[in-house]
């Protein structure tokens, strides 16, 4: 169908939202509560656009295009409404950008810059909900929450856990766990998908300090299980300092607790980087060559005396499918025992 956006005609497919149509046309519409994976909520009211023939502006995230629709995304009224909404949010938001981890990657900061909202002009009450640092992997600073509801919806609609919800009404509304008992006492499985969608600094991973502009991102496959989730390792210097799920992959922007948070072993001092051989009751570092030779020697010595079943091999879920296949082949075909297992059974 034909629609006109900001004076230019476009051919748009049926059942498309105005927001999607604008995105396809390269027109940027601000959103704080929108995520194409979730049902539209239309709570932030930033994506308002004017549609000819309707009295009030409409939210582009929830309005489907109609044939011959005329949309105006940059009218004076729309810009005023967006500025007012940003002003209202900022007026109730701690101005801590200088120390906030999210600075540089914060949608509220970006839009305030774009629309020239330097400060909140309404000097009144501010929200004072409690922060929750009980979860071992991430913190929740409720003061910074802008109640876009993305965390609640991702937890419910995509993760299927529904550990958090909104409590109280109006100005006192707050995202929290049932009966305010804290994240650690809730159903939260620490998947961190709420952290990944938070557009501001309300939900942030417990992590080493870094600024977004200091990093590079490296796309990789999560090695924890066989699903093959894609993720971006956030690397500062030569250290992995964070993990972000990839949206353009089969995991659809989601990760589990391991993929999202269990990266700190990479630079951990206890991490094994070479094989160990026990000499005189103590494990000593060795090269792979030494290790292979040692294994061959021991197998040749012990197999004639005690039989093949005196050997057992234990491999790891962190290895690839192919590596695990080869490992069991080594034990069954070369050594001749079925005593082979894997840490995923533990």
């Amino acid at each position: 169908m034909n629609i006109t956006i900001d004076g230019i005609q476009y051919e748009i497919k049926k059942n498309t939202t105005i927001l999607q149509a604008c995105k396809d046309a390269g027109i940027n519409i601000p959103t704080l509560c929108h995520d194409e994976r979730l049902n539209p909520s239309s709570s932030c009211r930033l994506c308002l656009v004017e549609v000819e023939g309707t009295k009030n502006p409409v939210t582009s995230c929830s309005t489907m295009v109609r044939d011959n629709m005329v949309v105006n995304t940059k009218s004076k009224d729309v810009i005023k409404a967006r500025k007012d909404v940003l002003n209202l949010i900022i007026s109730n938001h701690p101005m801590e950008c200088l120390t906030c981890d999210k600075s540089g990657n914060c949608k509220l900061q970006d839009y305030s810059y774009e629309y020239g909202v330097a400060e909140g002009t309404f000097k009144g009450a501010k929200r004072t909900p409690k922060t929750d640092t009980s979860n071992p992997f991430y913190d929740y600073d409720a003061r910074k929450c802008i109640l876009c509801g993305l965390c609640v919806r991702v937890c419910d609609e995509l993760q299927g856990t529904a550990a958090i919800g909104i409590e109280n009404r109006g100005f006192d509304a707050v995202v929290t766990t049932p009966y305010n008992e804290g994240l650690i006492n809730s159903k939260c499985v620490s998947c961190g998908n709420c952290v990944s969608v938070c557009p501001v600094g309300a939900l942030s991973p417990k992590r080493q300090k870094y600024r977004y502009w200091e990093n590079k991102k490296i796309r990789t496959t999560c090695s924890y299980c066989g699903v093959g989730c894609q993720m971006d390792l956030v690397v500062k210097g030569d250290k992995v300092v964070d993990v972000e799920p990839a949206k353009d992959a089969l995991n659809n922007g989601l990760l589990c607790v391991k993929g999202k948070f269990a990266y700190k072993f990479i630079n951990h001092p206890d991490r094994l980087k070479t094989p160990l051989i026990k000499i005189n009751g103590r494990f000593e570092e060795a090269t792979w060559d030494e290790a292979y030779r040692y294994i061959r020697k021991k197998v040749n010595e012990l197999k004639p005396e005690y039989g093949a079943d005196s050997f057992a091999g234990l491999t790891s879920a962190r290895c690839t499918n192919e590596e695990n296949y080869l490992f069991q082949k080594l034990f069954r075909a070369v050594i001749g025992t079925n005593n082979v297992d894997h840490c995923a059974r533990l």
Partner: protein
Amino acid sequence: MGCRKVLTLERLQQIRKEHRPILEARVGEAGNADINEDGSIVLNGDYYKKQVRIALKNCGIINPLMIEDYIAVDGYSALANILFNKSSGEIIDDMMASNLRGRGGAGFPTGRKWNEAFKYDADQKFMICNADEGDPGAFMDRSILENDPHSVLEGMAIGGYAVGADKGFIYVRAEYPIAVKRLRTAIEQAKELGILGNNILGTGFSFDIELRLGSGAFVCGEGTALIESIEGKRGMPRTKIHRTAHKGLWQKPTIINNVETYANVPVIFQKGVDWFRSIGTEKSPGTKVFSLVGKVQNAGLVEVPMGTPLREIVYDIGGGVQDGKGFKAVQTGGPSGGCIPAHLIDTPVDFESLGKIGSIMGSGGMVVMDEDTCMVDVARFFLEFTVDESCGKCVPCREGTKRMLEILERIVSGHGEDGDIELMEDLSETISKASLCGLGQTASNPVVTTIKYFRDEYEAHINEKKCPSGSCRPLIKYFITEACIGCTRCAKSCPVDSCITGKVKERHVINQDVCIKCGTCYEVCPVKPVKAVVKG
């Protein structure tokens, strides 16, 4: 399940015949109502003379706990007649022709709403009655539910037959325990008799009604928030992607009408579309029930034809302002309505006319204000209500109304600043245009209309730090003039230590720093003809 006798049309008519004399005898004995030649029973007395009662027609006349009483006043005859003689399409046509408009506030034509659900193909459809009446001081729906519950059940069943729904929910606020009890009894009796349930009157049409109790959230009166609440979720309005008539409760076609709307339905089918359209105005036919409260002589429920001038309601029925004081304004439409000033008192009360002057019909609240009422404080009062009841989902309502309330609180406490009026006008525009649901979109109406019609009062508060009506306490000052005779009565009556000082037979002085502005000194001062204590 045991085998139950199916209610027949003959049996229904028989109940009516048997019970009518009993009802008439009771009415005659009570003496509060007259039986007209056409068989209608109407309450007598001056208060009711100017009223035309359709939705309230049985209130105060029948016993709501007896289904036979309702049947005796032709109750359920419209449903029976429809089930035997009319198709769904014909009912929809009649409803559209009647142009009955939703009585919950928005005034959407009921027939058009029903038609949407009727046309939409689905395996299950629902009828919902919105009985979550939450406007402060409004008790129209409560009165119907408590005094004539069967009229609502009948209206819902007719709607169910029309759109193809076999299940209805009444969402009633838990703060109406009597209404809940009587609805429960009415549903039980109707099921027992067979006028609700499976295979009604042997026609094959089934319709069941269940109650759902609200938990005290005003916003659950908003249709989609109400649906969320019935589904067991937090009561917050949905964004309007689909019409509820297409995808509503559990994503099935759903009709939500207000109590008063349903109460009108059976009467329209009893007396005909032409009769209904002969009452009220062309665009708003029928009557509307108002809850007339505030500084009016005769407060109570008033049902009048649409288009009746405000003056008739306030003066002819309401008896004018209490204590002979001057009429200042009337607030219509509940907390999201507007204040109508004295010079517009001849405005006819219908959807269009009220909209034109910045107010709304709303669900029918009507608060009369006298000369002692401060309009800035009125705006603050209603806004405080909306701020409390905002669900917090969308930014303009959650944050914007709160900021507006903060400005109003500043003004009534004497800290208003130059530019506050303009700031509120500017902010109200965004709140009205950008809010998600009706609550936010109309929240600033009381502020906008009071600024429009009583701007001078705002200016007095801000510029002169004075409340012209003498009602905003922080802006009032009491002081004692030279006329003081030194009788000491004020000092003795003053509840604050060391506030009023002075020797006998000498002029007394009020210490402004400790004065709590209770006005006791003013009340007790015996000096005549002008008191020595002055309020300013």
